[in-house]
């Protein structure tokens, strides 16, 4: 390929600092910063996961077993905050950092120094947040949604608000960087409608981030002033309105859900065509579906508030608007299935996780449709049915996609193949235990078990025990993932080819494995037939 000529193996690692501190703390290289994001998110995944283990251990049997109720509430709150802002979002930013410049033929991100700052804010934000668990008065315990007046009762409000501000600044800077990279740094010939779907999904996600993270910043700033400066934004006694917070929060919160799932759509749209050895079915439809979902995400926020006492017209509007999201989402699911249809499929680990994503995310989508029905939501609201729903979307959706993406590109990053046997062990253990963990929670919710409680009626005992066993084993299964990564990075003897997977197309597969420290220093010459979406006509 002509564009591969831009690489000279002699110069592959030119510029990589040998000093550990300089390389990793002062890096402006998109690959190193991507690695930092991914390692950070894996660490947060295990910290957030350990909080989940505390929750499932407490719920193993009815009655208070291990922890005090306040600590239990801290665990539910911190589990969500750490998993959302510390694990899932940084993982996608890490994948984007690593792969977007490689996929569009750019030498690096548009703003490399800001990229470094975006990452290095995060460890401080989470140190601040997690430190509250060790301070007198404890950590935030009012739920990740931070509804006042409950969330204002603790002593850690300032820590929480400052941590959220830092995470928000990091996300906004990261989003601006990604937009600037995609809009300005693409190699000549890489038209917008020739970009990989993953790049498209990140471009749209970055727009969402810029639109909603400042809204979260505004909401928590008002919480802060209500707590410490005597304002009454959300204090009814002072003329404020606590429901106003819910509106502002969910105006951020619902697009946030799509921030966590749109890049997952992009990842799966890369992986399925590779292992089906067919171009993605309906490339343009996939891109427009992502854009439609992003648009709709701004006009559905109050479906989280059906039980709060909305006017009937509002309930009907938000119910129908929410159900409308099923249309572009359905387009995507049908297109993934159509891509696989008639393909020469093989089932390597990334493909297994991608197929599990399609099936299990669809289950989460269907339970979401059930929750979208306003009259039914009065029954489901604040029950374990909601917990089951969003864990199907976020664990078997977002996290499975992140794992799939990691297996897919790990050989490109390390230059070595991972162990397919242990990858498949990881997959089968994950897919079995995650269903044992979350599927019974549908039944618990329908039977009336509320979420965020440390104790429950004995009638819910059996399903809770099954769910906890699934939780412990799902958590333990993730240790296999770490083992596979450690093996691939340091011990694997099997070298990866430049084009790691037979059916893979796109610029990232034209660079050597492992990807050199600097790539595409000269803009690559792009041949349409070598791109996954080089010939888009309809």
């Amino acid at each position, binding site marked *: 390929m002509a564009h591969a000529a831009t690489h000279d193996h002699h*110069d592959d690692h030119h510029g990589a600092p040998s000093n550990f501190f300089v390389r990793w703390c002062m890096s402006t290289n998109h690959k190193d910063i991507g690695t930092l994001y991914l390692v950070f998110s894996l660490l947060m995944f295990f910290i957030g996961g350990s909080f989940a283990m505390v929750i499932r251990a407490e719920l193993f049997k009815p009655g208070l077993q291990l922890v005090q109720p306040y600590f239990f509430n801290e665990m539910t709150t911190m589990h969500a905050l750490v998993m959302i802002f510390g694990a899932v979002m940084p993982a996608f930013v890490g994948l984007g950092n690593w792969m977007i410049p490689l996929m569009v033929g750019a030498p690096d991100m548009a703003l490399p120094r800001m990229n470094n700052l975006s990452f290095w804010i995060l460890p401080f934000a989470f140190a601040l947040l997690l430190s509250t668990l060790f301070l007198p008065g404890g950590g935030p315990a009012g739920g990740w949604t931070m509804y006042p007046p409950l969330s204002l009762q603790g002593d850690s409000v300032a820590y929480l608000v400052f941590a959220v501000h830092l995470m928000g600044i990091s996300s906004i800077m990261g989003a601006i960087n990604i937009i600037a990279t995609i809009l300005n740094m693409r190699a000549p010939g890489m038209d917008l409608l020739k970009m990989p779907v993953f790049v498209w999904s990140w471009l749209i996600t970055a727009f969402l981030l810029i639109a909603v993270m400042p809204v979260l910043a505004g909401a928590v700033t008002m919480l802060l002033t209500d707590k410490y400066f005597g304002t009454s934004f959300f204090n009814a006694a002072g003329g404020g309105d606590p429901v106003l917070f819910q509106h502002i929060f969910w105006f951020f919160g619902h697009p946030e859900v799509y921030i966590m799932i749109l890049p997952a759509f992009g990842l799966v749209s890369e992986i399925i065509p590779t292992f089906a050895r067919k171009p993605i079915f309906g490339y343009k439809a996939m891109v427009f579906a992502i854009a439609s979902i992003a648009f709709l995400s701004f006009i559905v926020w109050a479906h989280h508030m059906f039980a709060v006492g909305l006017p009937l017209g509002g309930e009907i509007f938000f119910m129908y608007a929410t159900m409308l999201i099923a249309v572009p989402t359905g387009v995507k699911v049908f297109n993934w299935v159509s891509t696989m249809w008639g393909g020469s499929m093989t089932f390597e680990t990334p493909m297994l996780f991608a197929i599990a994503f399609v099936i299990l995310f669809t289950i989460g989508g269907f339970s979401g449709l059930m929750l979208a029905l306003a009259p039914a939501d009065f029954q489901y609201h604040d029950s374990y049915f909601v917990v089951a729903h969003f864990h199907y979307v976020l664990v078997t959706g977002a996290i499975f996609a992140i794992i799939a993406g990691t297996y897919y590109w790990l050989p490109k990053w390390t230059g070595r193949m991972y162990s397919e046997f242990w990858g498949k062990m990881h997959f089968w253990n994950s897919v079995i235990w995650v269903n044992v963990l979350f599927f019974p929670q549908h039944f618990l919710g329908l039977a009336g078990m509320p979420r965020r409680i440390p104790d429950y009626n004995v009638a819910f005992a059996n399903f809770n025990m099954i769910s906890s066993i699934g939780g412990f084993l799902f958590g333990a299964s993730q240790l296999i993932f770490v083992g596979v990564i450690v093996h691939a990075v340091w011990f694997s003897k099997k070298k990866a080819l430049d084009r790691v997977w037979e059916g893979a197309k796109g610029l990232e597969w034209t660079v050597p494995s492992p990807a050199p420290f600097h790539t595409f220093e000269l803009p690559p010459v792009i041949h349409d037939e070598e791109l996954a979406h080089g010939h888009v006509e309809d």
Partner: protein
Amino acid sequence: MFNRSGLVPGRRETSRMKQANATIEDMRKRGVRRTVTVFGAIAIAIFLLSLLQGLKYS
């Protein structure tokens, strides 16, 4: 910023390549600056608007 001129030390370049890269580099710099300004301003404006919403309805 790292060297984005397309030159790896020791590699020869033609004057045409140098010229083309300089033009692309200029356009990119301008584009990046414009993108950052526009989206940074949008982010700040949305933050202020959300505070104004709070003031309006409380």
